[in-house]
Every structure is written in C-alpha cells, then in structure tokens.
C-alpha cells in the first residue's frame, strides 16, 4: 500500500503550439484510487493518453516531462508496451467484438491454446483453442470484479453495463496488472450498475491494484477515491484527500476561473421583464450524442441567453433541433407565430439564424470563396444580392453587392484573408468562425443561435468573436442564444444562463451567480433545495 507505483513529473504537451498540458505532477501509491476530474478539454484524456503510450501523442510531437512506473523510468511508445508493463485502460468507447462471447472478448489474442498435429506442420498459429481454460481465465477475471456476468453471452446481446464490465474484465485478466485507468466508466451505466462498479473498484484497490478513475459524477469520486485531482486548462488546480473534499468544493475548482466581469455593462433594460421573443415548449431532438429530451425555455427580447452543460447532455441539440438540422418535436413559438420544425427555410425566413458548432460540416462551403460563404444564405433566404430581370423570372447574382457586403464583414469582424475571393478552406479556425458568424449576421436575424462560438480557436479570435456578439446585441438589439461548454465564457457574455443536464433544463440562473452554483447544476445537483 505504501510503495509508490506511478510518478509523473512536469508533464507538458502541446498540439502544434496550442498548450494542452502544463507542468502536471502526479503521484500514485500501490492500491490507491485516484480520481481525476475537470471540464471537457481540461486535459484529462491527453494526460492518460501520454501515460498509456497512445500513438496520437507521438504523432503530434511527443510530450515533455518524465514518468516513473514501478520504480523504473519509462516512456511508452505504444499501447502494447504500456500493457506489457502492467497498465490497463478502459476507454470511453467500447472496443469489443459484438459477435463474440464475453469469454472470447476477455481473452482475445491471449487465448489458451492446445498443441495439435496441424500446429506441428504450420506452427503455433494453428493451435486449437482450449475453451475450458479460456473460460476459467475469464471467470477468474470476472470474479475479481465480483459482478454477475454471463461469460457465454454474446457481447452484442448484453446491456451496456455488462459490456463495460467485460471491458474491465479484459484488462484484469492480463497477468501482472498493476494500474487500471478507467475513462468515464460510469457515464453509460445505470445507478445500480454504477454502484456495483464502484464496489468492484474498492475491491480491486484492496487487492493491490491502483486505479485512476475519470468521471463527471463527483459523488462517485468522493465515494471511492483516496486522492482527488482537479484539472483545468491543462493544469492541476487542486489536489484533495477524499476526507476533506466536498462536491461543491470540487465543482468550484473545476469551473472556478475568476473572471473580470467589470467590462460587462449592465443592461439598461431588465431582460427578465422584457417581452418573450421565443417560447420553447417540450422540445425533443434526436441528435446522436446530444439528445434533447424535454426542454422548455423562454427567450426574452434583447437578451443574451447562455445555454451550458457538460458535453453529451443535450445542449447542442437545442439549436440544431429548432433550426431543422436534426429531427425534432415539441412547439417553438417565435414572436407569437409557431415555427415549423424540421424545416430550415421556414426558420430562416422567420428571422432566425444559426452559427453551427460544426464549422467544416455545416457552417462553411470550404471549397468556395468567402463571398459565397457569407452571402449565400442571405441570397437564398432573403433574395438579397440579386438583380432581377424579365420581371423577376431571372434572378442574377449581383457580384458587386456580394463583394461589398463581404468586404464590410471582413472589416467589421477583422477576418484575416488575402482577398474576399479566398477559399474558406485556407483560413485559420478563428477566421473561419468569423466567416460563419458573418454568414449569420448577413441574414440580419432578429434571433441568433450561436453554438460553441469559440471552440478550437485561439484567445485573440475568441475575444473578437465574443465582442462582436455583444456589439450586435447592444447596437442592433439582436436577441442571442449562445451555447457553450465554457462556463466562464457564458458568464462573461450572457445575461442569464440555463444549464442542461440529461436533455432537460436543470436550472436557469442570472450570469452573476457564483460559478460554483453552475458547477453544481452541471453535475446534476439542483442546488439550494436539494
């Protein structure tokens, strides 16, 4: 229990100049459970990838710092090496063969084999499988977890919880397993299954296997972990012993960047009493990975409403559903008129616009010029930038008007480009994002959805985009609904923030509430009352 198993020192990593990990130190003793928490993009997964020797790390230029495992300095170049020295990892996505049984999956490529005549001729690759011994191995591994799992069941027929157990069993069945990394193992489990898993983790720790446990469910962390590390922006911001940690303490450390909100001017009008611009009732959206189950919201005229929440909880589904990009149901009323769902042109014609989080997929015509990218929607929806001939029979593209409007937005949003005819593909991420925004603004919308406006762009572009949003909100009175994973960004721009958890609105708070409160909402605590 006392001996140090793993020591990671001064770990740093950057992806092409974009720093994602900085000076991370981590010590883990034998038989200890370490909880790792942080917002999406805080660097948890990257840290684990480095430890596990994933190829993607080496391909992007390696990492800095040293790792000592079991008393020896190590630098894994492949996952196989990490596995061989006793590190097992269970990923968020299942890597199982659905047509194979649990046993076959658990001992895959490490099957017990029997020597036969054929193998004399063709070598050990044609040994026959020793099913009984395979079964024994698998059951042994399952017993370590102490869960009920039918070793003969096809993985494809299993409920997700059992799949997760199969994955963990597979790691446990390796000889000499010393450290097990679990990346959000409970995300897909029901409460009951999660409890079973947690007790298994405790049992594993008692038997001397160390565990690194990544999760968003803070209560779980408190229950099983001996030590808790909170990561934010690639650094470890807090190190706690489970004895003196609390859910709210962790939540605050997770999101709690103190930001300067003084730059934000108080609104002259009280948005809460302003007339309702859009009313969303019982909205559901079928968007893979971002399912919206039942959202009811009111958007007031002239406000900037933030929608936050952890990834996969459904916040991105809301604008995508309303704008007709994914199948949706429920009622959405805009200025007293019901919007036809699943019909993008109706939404756009009513004065809505959307800046998608998927720049390359939805937001841009990568192989066309900036002129096309910015003017296209407005041309098609509002018949702008067109010259009419023959009594409107021929609607001719007005290249001059297009160039003029493009130049205007290039100047207004400081889009860095060589000319307005440059292809959108050749711009940097931040400038592409500005083009997406310009496209939406060219529609002159009365309500603008902006989804993850700062994802994957550098800090300079970030503040320009956010400033532009505020400027349009203040000067043109455009109502804005902004969806973002970054709480601090929402707090610095929005008037009110709604937090989405499990496809539903769990709470709406004014933006000046302490970030701790939002952190609690994000992890599923309804706040004061509960």
């Amino acid at each position, binding site marked *: 229990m006392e001996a140090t198993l793993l020591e990671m020192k001064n770990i740093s990593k950057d992806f092409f100049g974009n720093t994602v990990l900085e000076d991370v130190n981590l010590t883990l003793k034998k038989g200890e459970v370490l909880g790792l928490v942080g917002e999406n993009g805080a660097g948890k997964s990257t840290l684990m990838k480095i430890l596990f020797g994933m190829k993607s790390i080496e391909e992007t230029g390696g990492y800095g710092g040293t790792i000592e495992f079991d008393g020896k300095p190590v630098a894994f170049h492949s996952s196989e090496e990490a596995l061989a020295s006793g590190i097992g990892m269970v990923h968020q996505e299942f890597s199982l063969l659905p047509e194979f049984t649990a046993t076959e999956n658990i001992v895959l490529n490490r099957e017990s084999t029997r020597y036969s005549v054929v193998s004399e001729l063709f070598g050990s690759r044609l040994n026959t499988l020793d099913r009984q011994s395979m079964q024994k191995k698998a059951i042994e591994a399952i017993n370590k977890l102490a869960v009920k799992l039918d070793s003969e069941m096809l993985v494809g027929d299993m409920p997700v919880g059992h799949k997760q157990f199969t994955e963990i069993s597979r790691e446990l069945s390796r000889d000499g397993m010393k450290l097990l990394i679990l990346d959000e193992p409970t995300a897909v489990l029901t409460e009951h299954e999660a409890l079973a898993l947690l007790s298994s983790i405790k049992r594993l720790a008692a038997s001397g296997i160390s565990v690194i446990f990544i999760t968003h469910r803070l209560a779980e962390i408190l229950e099983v972990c001996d030590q808790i590390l909170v990561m934010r922006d690639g650094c470890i911001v807090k190190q706690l012993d489970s004895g003196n940690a609390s859910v709210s303490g962790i939540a605050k450390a997770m999101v709690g960047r103190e930001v300067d909100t003084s730059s934000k001017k108080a609104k002259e009008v009280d948005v809460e009493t302003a007339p309702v611009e859009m009313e969303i009732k019982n909205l559901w959206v079928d968007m893979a990975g971002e399912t919206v189950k039942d959202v009811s919201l009111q958007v007031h005229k002239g406000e900037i409403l933030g929608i936050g929440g952890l990834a996969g909880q459904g916040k991105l589904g809301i604008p995508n559903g309303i704008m007709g990009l994914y199948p949706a149901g429920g009622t959405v009323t805009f200025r007293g008129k019901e919007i036809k769902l699943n019909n*993008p042109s109706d939404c756009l014609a009513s004065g809505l616009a959307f800046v998608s989080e998927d720049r390359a997929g939805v937001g841009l015509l990568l192989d066309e010029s900036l002129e096309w990218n910015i003017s296209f929607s407005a041309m098609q929806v509002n018949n702008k930038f067109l010259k009419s001939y023959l009594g409107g029979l021929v609607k001719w593209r007005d290249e001059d008007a297009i160039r003029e409007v493009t130049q205007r937005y290039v100047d207004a949003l400081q889009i860095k480009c060589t000319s307005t005819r440059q292809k959108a593909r050749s711009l940097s991420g931040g400038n592409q994002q500005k083009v997406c925004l310009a496209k939406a603004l060219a529609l002159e919308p009365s309500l603008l959805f902006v989804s993850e406006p700062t994802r994957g762009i550098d800090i300079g572009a970030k503040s320009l985009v956010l400033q532009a949003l505020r400027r349009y909100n203040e000067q043109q009175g455009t109502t804005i609904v902004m969806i973002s994973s970054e709480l601090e960004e929402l707090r610095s721009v929005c008037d009110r923030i709604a937090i989405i958890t499990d496809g539903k609105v769990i709470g709406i708070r004014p933006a000046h509430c302490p970030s701790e409160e939002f952190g609690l909402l994000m992890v599923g605590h309804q706040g004061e009352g509960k």
Partner: protein
Amino acid sequence: MNKMQRFIKEFGWPRLIIAAFLLSLFVIAPFAGVNIGTSLTDTIMRFSMNGVMVLAMVPMIHSGCGLNFGLPLGIIAGLLGGTLAMQFGFTGKLSFLMAIVLCTPFALLFGWAYGKLLNRVKGGEMMIATYVGFASVSFMCMMWLLLPYSNPQMVWGYGGSGLRTTISTEGYYYHVLSDFLNIKIGHLSIPTGSLLFFALLAFLMWAFLHTKKGTAMTAVGSNPIYARASGIKIDSIRTLSVIMSTWLGAVGILVYEQAFGFIQLYNGPFYMALPAVSAILIGGASVNKASITNVIVGTFLFQGIVTMTPSVMNSIIHTDMSEVIRIIVSNGMILYALTRKTEETR
C-alpha cells in the same frame, strides 16, 4: 515568369501535356501525308457533335450527383424525339426543331424518375447511374422492336415492323446545323451552325449557374449540409440537375445525329457516356466542380486526340489499323481520365 507559373497551375499539367501531344500530331501530320485541313475539319466536326453531351455533365457535377454515367437515358429520350419527329412526317429544318420539342417530355419524365432514384442512393450515384444507363438501353432494345413505328425509311424492310439499327437522317434533319453558315476554305470546312448551337446552350448553362437557383445548385454540390442549413431543399435541386442533364443528353444526341447523318438505335447509346465523362475530366473538372471552360477544353482535347492519332499513326506505319488504334486511343483516354478523377473533400 510568375504569370506563366500561375497560368500553368490554373490550366493544369495534364492538359498542357495532352495539348502538346495534340499539337505535335498536327505538326507530324503533313509529313505523314495527312491533310491538315481535313484533320482540322474532322476535329472541329467531332467537337461540335459531342460538345452538348459533354455539357450535359455539368449540372449533375454541380449538384453533387457526380458524373452522369446514366447519360444513355437522356440519349434514349433524344432518340425517341428524333424518331417520332420522322414518324410524324416532319422534314428538313422543322424536323430538327420538332425532334427537340418531342424529346423534351420524355427527358423531363425520365430525368425526374432518375433524379428521384439518385436521391435515394446518395454517395453511390455514379455506380447506380451506370446501371440505370445500361438497363435503359437494354429495355429500349425491346421497345424499338415493339413500338408501332411505320415510316418505311425507319422500319426493317422485311416484316415491315420494328425499327432498324441504323436509320439515315437524309431528307430529315441531316446536317441542318452543320450546313448552316458553313465556312469552306479549301479542305477546311467549319460547321458554324453546330458550333453556334453549342455556344448557345453553353451560354444558357453559364447563365443558369449565375442565377439564384444555379448558385444553390453549386452550393448543394459543394456542401449539402451547408445548403440545407441555409434553407435549400437539396433533393429538389438535385432532381432539377438530373432533369437538366438528361435533357441536354437528349438534345446532345440529336446534334450528334444531324452531323453524323444516322440515328443509331439498340446498343448505340450503350457506350456514349464514357467519352463524355472522359472529355470533361480531361478538361480539368473534378467530381464536384466543373466549368464551361472545362467542357470546351476537354471536348476539344479528347476529340482531337481520338481523331488525329489513328489517322497519323496509320499513315506512318502504312497498314490499315485505324480502327484498332482508334479503340486503343479512345479507351486509353477514358482510362487516363478516370484515374485523374479528383474528389474534393467535402
């Protein structure tokens, strides 16, 4: 120099090499005893014959439906129009006009159904299109025999029913375009009418691509999800492009027939799609980007090589191998063009 480099980049090395090869053939021709005037006449004539069918590729490329390997479907609509015009007894210039009028409803109907089909197989359009072309040709092989045509110039002499495999357009629309304003200088003869007709259709296509609908069509091909998010009905734009392509295929074969002098039925349309596809690829188009320049350059280079190589080679080696060389060259060009097929990442 900089200007030169930019020109090369825009024009593309493959086109420069093919153009240089074609030019060298024209240079060698007189020494091999081939008349330059006749060669040029042939090249220009073949250009004017095939141009419209190559133009038919443009709308579907723009809407993201890929290369129209199902061109035979449009050709069949054209053949129906062409034969019906003769059956109804229209002659001379009027017969060509009536052929276009009569082929239009068929082209619209076929194109609409073909478009609906392609909307259900997004991502696999070109494979399906190939088989639509083949299947329609085979189906029409039966119909040409069964349809109650009765014009004696068209039906089999014995039996008196069923259309012939090859029908002369003599007395109907033979050379109506080619002979219009024809310019003759020695051995050189320029089919001005055909060229003008092609230019007219090419201009209309160019103009269409500059309208609101045409812009939408290009955007659908460039990024269908972007287009949908901008309120475009992708499926109807795609169907429209298929209808346009089919109609151009129909008109294209009529232009071809008036210059060629014969209507080729039954298996005639079978392999018509490949030369058109190759021509536009050689012209520098990709699977989802094509311009009118691509059409003109590609058709000229493709038809130029196919015309010149056999005649020049034949004269050099003094054996009558023109047919063999023609097949090797034209299929080689198709093969080359298809390997040049670039699919821009969506």
